[in-house]
């Protein structure tokens, strides 16, 4: 008797409790993040502590699938409230009607350093002029050198020009038998050769896509410019200092390239900071206590031209969200200084004021220097042809030229014709 009374009491207490909980039921927003959970777990926990009325459900997806999935969900009225996006997707997704304009939030409840402090603002806007994304993190690519191999090859100064780079790479191969500048030359749709080609053009004062004074878009390179870049990179393949097998490697983080750098079979590479950090870690794991024989440096930038990109990610809010206020609160929090100072340490903040405060540390010095000589994709992203299409076409064209399937001039001509055709089709 007593027992059942006690049980009844417990049950009713539990029911009361659940009713109270329901009354203060927190709003749940979904955040879909494209990197690993542990990078943002701390920040999310802190946000939930500060905002007990908002619960954040973290979903994970890979970068390669993130945009497709988000677009199809957005089209049927679904999807996460807040989505992690590449900078260059925002304009397109805004135009697709998938994103919530942020203009009102920026006016009423701006981030603490103001919107003007953010990098890559041009990429945050749709063609209709609305702001669709808040720049969140930024990074850039730089060159990485293995100093012990350079020394063995008799090179005591890091290359300053593209010609130096070529000569030093050949010298390493000739004197040590190891690979020189082993870059990924593969042709897949998101291959790294796209970056190298653009860096090469930019540092020569050109760009694949430019915006003219009247606002229209045009090709900013000639067939010769493209063929020159192809011939330049082809020398590495033909000389053998970039092994033939790298024609099948498309990513800077291809394990064979990383392994070659870690084990000292390759002297030079080009990559984003996180790949570089991974290489240093693998070297330290394999050689405990030994000094790390790597340095980073900017890509050649003769005449102070740009030679790498201000890459990075933004946070966007789904047009279908039922909780826009809470979503904005979360987005703003994630871009705040405390998050980057305390929790999210694997990326650099996309705000000039915060970027200046960062101590990059000796190994990443080259990346810090590179930021001075970096530009955004700008017209590439706002222009008529999707950036992914140009990226794919460029990788294919370089692939045929570098593998010797076609002459650089032909491949270059084909590439520009195809892009022009698509520009004309899209107006």
């Amino acid at each position, binding site marked *: 008797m007593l027992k059942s009374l006690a049980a009844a009491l417990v049950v009713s207490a539990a029911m009361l409790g659940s009713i109270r909980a329901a009354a203060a039921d927190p709003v749940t927003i979904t955040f879909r993040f494209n990197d690993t959970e542990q990078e943002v777990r701390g920040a999310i926990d802190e946000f939930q502590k500060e905002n007990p009325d908002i619960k954040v459900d973290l*979903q994970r997806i890979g970068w390669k699938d993130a945009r497709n999935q988000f677009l199809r969900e957005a089209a049927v009225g679904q999807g996460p409230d807040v989505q992690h996006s590449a900078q260059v997707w925002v304009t397109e997704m805004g135009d697709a009607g998938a994103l919530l304009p942020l203009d009102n939030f920026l006016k009423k409840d701006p981030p603490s350093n103001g919107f003007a402090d953010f990098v890559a603002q041009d990429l945050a806007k749709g063609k209709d002029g609305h702001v669709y994304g808040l720049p969140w993190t930024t990074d850039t690519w730089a060159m990485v050198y293995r100093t012990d191999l350079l020394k063995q090859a008799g090179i005591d100064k890091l290359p300053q020009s593209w010609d130096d780079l070529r000569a030093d790479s050949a010298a390493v191969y000739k004197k040590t038998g190891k690979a020189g500048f082993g870059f990924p030359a593969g042709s897949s749709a998101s291959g790294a050769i796209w970056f190298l080609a653009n860096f090469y053009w930019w540092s020569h004062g050109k760009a694949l896509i430019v915006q003219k004074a009247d606002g229209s878009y045009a090709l900013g390179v000639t067939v010769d410019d493209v063929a020159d870049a192809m011939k330049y990179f082809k020398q590495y393949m033909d000389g053998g200092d970039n092994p033939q097998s790298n024609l099948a490697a498309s990513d800077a983080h291809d394990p064979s390239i990383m392994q070659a750098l870690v084990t000292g079979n390759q002297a030079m590479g080009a990559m984003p900071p996180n790949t570089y950090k991974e*290489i240093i870690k693998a070297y330290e794991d394999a050689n405990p206590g030994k000094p790390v024989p790597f340095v980073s440096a900017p890509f050649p930038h003769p005449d102070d031209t740009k030679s790498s990109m201000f890459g990075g990610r933004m946070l966007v809010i789904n047009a279908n969200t039922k909780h826009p206020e809470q979503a904005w609160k979360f987005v703003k929090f994630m871009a705040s200084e405390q998050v980057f100072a305390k929790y999210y340490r694997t990326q650099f903040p996309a705000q000039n004021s915060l970027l200046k405060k960062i101590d990059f540390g000796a190994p990443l010095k080259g990346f810090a220097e590179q930021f001075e000589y970096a530009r955004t994709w700008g017209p590439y992203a706002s222009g008529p042809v999707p950036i992914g299409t140009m990226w794919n076409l460029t990788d294919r064209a370089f692939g045929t030229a570098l593998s010797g399937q076609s002459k650089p001039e032909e491949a270059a001509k084909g590439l520009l014709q195809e892009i022009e055709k698509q520009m004309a089709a899209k107006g």
Partner: protein
Amino acid sequence: MSAPASSRHWRDPGPTALAVSAVLAVVVLFVMVYPAVYVLIGSFRPGGGLLSATGTFTFRNYVRIFQSGFGRFIVNSLVICVAATLASTVLSIMAAYAFSRFDFRFKRALFTGILFGQVFPWIVLINPLFVAFATMHLINSYIGMILTYTAFTVPFSVYMLVGYLVTVPKSLDEAAIIDGASRWQVIWYIICPVMLPGFVATATYAFLLCWTEYLFALAFLTQTDLKTLPLGLYQFFGEDNVDWGAVMAASVVTTLPVFLLFLPIQGRISPGRIAGAVK
């Protein structure tokens, strides 16, 4: 393990035949297993042993994948794949039996029509399917996934089972029917035992297809607590780096349950019953 029945009726091999068979078997075994051994070893090394050869032994890869939800993913995969395999096998046995034992109108058209969905590259069907699923509220649900996998494995299983069934004489069923058995009893008591190896083969196919499927799972399961093993494995492929150690550990963990599940099943295929059934 019982040996295949027919082996008893071949002459004993001479020493040369034995040696040749042994060499062939070792080559096959080596090619099949070596890459997996490579993964197994890598799963106990930092970075999967890919970035440098001198790695130390570590369990950290396994700890990491279970911290990122692999326990849950195993359960999800098991629920979805076992249910889909059962559904697919039962439906296929029913359909295959009807196809192989009866004559009816539109039979050929239906039999060919089952292949309808198999002629499409699945990637073009993803978007239309997603839209259809969204209207039916089947996104992020076990049921949706189970139905999908059933629908995608049934055609092969029906064809395969018809292929097996046509080698079983119809006289078997007819004799039983004359003795007063119902069709269901025929299927259960006569066809099933004879067809056991065939069922196991098609069930294995259905199960492993679900177990390794990525495209549909990606589109239809976005909630972390519903994800399947292949999705869990893919999360270690980052934009700037890949957690190779975790990928290899995840791959080992993905393969293990398959063994635990199929060891006992494979052991039960007893060829003796077949001989008895035909008499």
